């Protein structure tokens, strides 16, 4: 395994740089599910030559970009309920089949947002634990345990400076030992049951990364 690369001669990754980086990490020909929110922007950086096929949990492979104008069809939406278009070679299926596909390990990659990820790959992205919050899980737990590789895409720190990559999640979990790679504005981390390993960092030194995350990072 190669040593981490610290790009200290630049700032952290901008949002579109991060999305482009995630897109470059998706192998050609993969079947991919992009979560609601920031992960959706990864689609803008996938080239047709990559041959990536997008899955949406509400029953479709071959999902295309957001629909505009006359393309808008209320029967053709993505998981975020945004109208989308169909690409050639698309297929529709019902919900039990769609989630069998997810749960059965057939998706190569999913990209999810997160509140917290632990160094051993636990994911917390569905519930803040606030007592008055209405719980809503959707398909997050199915994706977390189902996709062969689970990429998380998030800012590394909260607005108040706490690390979202943690030793142990304090928020309610979505899945256990499921995240394979964490893509953040400050660094990319590969996770395993043995912990987190920095693959690359942007605008931050190794020491500063250890201090600000409070983590042991080999």
């Amino acid at each position, binding site marked *: 395994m190669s040593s981490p690369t610290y790009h200290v001669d630049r700032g952290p990754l901008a949002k579109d740089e991060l999305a482009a980086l995630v897109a470059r990490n998706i192998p050609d020909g993969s079947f991919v599910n992009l979560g609601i929110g920031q992960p959706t922007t990864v689609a803008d950086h996938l080239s047709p030559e990559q041959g990536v096929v997008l899955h*949406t*949990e*509400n*029953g*479709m492979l071959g999902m295309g970009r957001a629909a505009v104008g006359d393309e808008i*069809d*209320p*029967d*053709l*939406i993505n998981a975020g*309920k945004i109208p989308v278009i*169909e690409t050639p070679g698309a297929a*529709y*299926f*019902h*919900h*039990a089949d*769609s*989630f*069998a596909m*997810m*749960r059965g390990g057939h998706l190569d990659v999913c990209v999810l947002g997160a509140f917290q990820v632990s160094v051993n790959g*636990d994911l917390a992205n569905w*519930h803040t634990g606030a007592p*008055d*919050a*209405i*719980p*809503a*899980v*959707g*398909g*997050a*737990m*199915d994706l977390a*345990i*189902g996709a062969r590789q689970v990429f998380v895409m998030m800012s590394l720190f909260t607005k108040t400076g706490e690390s979202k990559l943690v030793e142990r999640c304090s928020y*309610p*979990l*979505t*899945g*256990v030992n499921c995240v394979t790679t964490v893509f953040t504005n400050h660094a990319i981390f590969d996770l395993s049951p043995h912990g987190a390993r920095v693959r690359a960092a942007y605008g931050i030194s190794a020491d500063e990364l250890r201090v600000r995350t409070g983590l042991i990072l080999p």
Partner: protein
Amino acid sequence: MIAHYRDQGGADEAVADVPDGATVLIGGFGSAGQPVELIDALRRQGAKELVVVNNNAGNGDHGLAALLAAGQVAKIICSFPRQVDSWIFDDLYRSGRVQLEVVPQGTLAERMRAAGAGIGGFYCPTGVGTPLAQGKEARTIDGRDYLLELPLPGDYALIKAHRADRMGNLVYRKTARNFGPVMATAAATTIVQVGQVVATGALDPEAVVTPSIYVDRVVCQGQTGPEGGAQ
């Protein structure tokens, strides 16, 4: 029994026998595939203390949201109640006037499939180690952890399809298919709202998504094709 579409009554007649306390599976993912005409008829019919199964908990002020607002729903079983436009549910939930059971979306679909397929329960990896595992039997099989999930049958299913033939075979349209096919298998009585009824034999047998065996009543919002077979 076969639906054999015979210009049956409208939506009001179709839902007339839904009793208080029934478990009603309602199709749709957000608005796509939501059988609004049947839900509105159920609201007019007035059955109370319903247990509703849907992916969401109503959007805006119409359809499922209006059924909730009318106070007819005692409990909702869903995966994703909280949305930007779920204010009716939010108010009812926060004031304790509706119970909520949150189920991961795939488990929700699979529990209904199990009900329709005669499966007594299944071991599911989704939700292991999370708060939604509470109270569920856990089991390790072949080195992986699972939760025991039980079937979720309905007394009625209200779903929306694109076209039916006169026997009740159904095809759907794009992502409006979603929960319709699995709910049709899981309910004792399945009521379908369609845009068009075509002659028996006019649907491609290779492309039928819900065979007529799962369909009890069809309500047509649009055009009705000729009676009898296509022959």
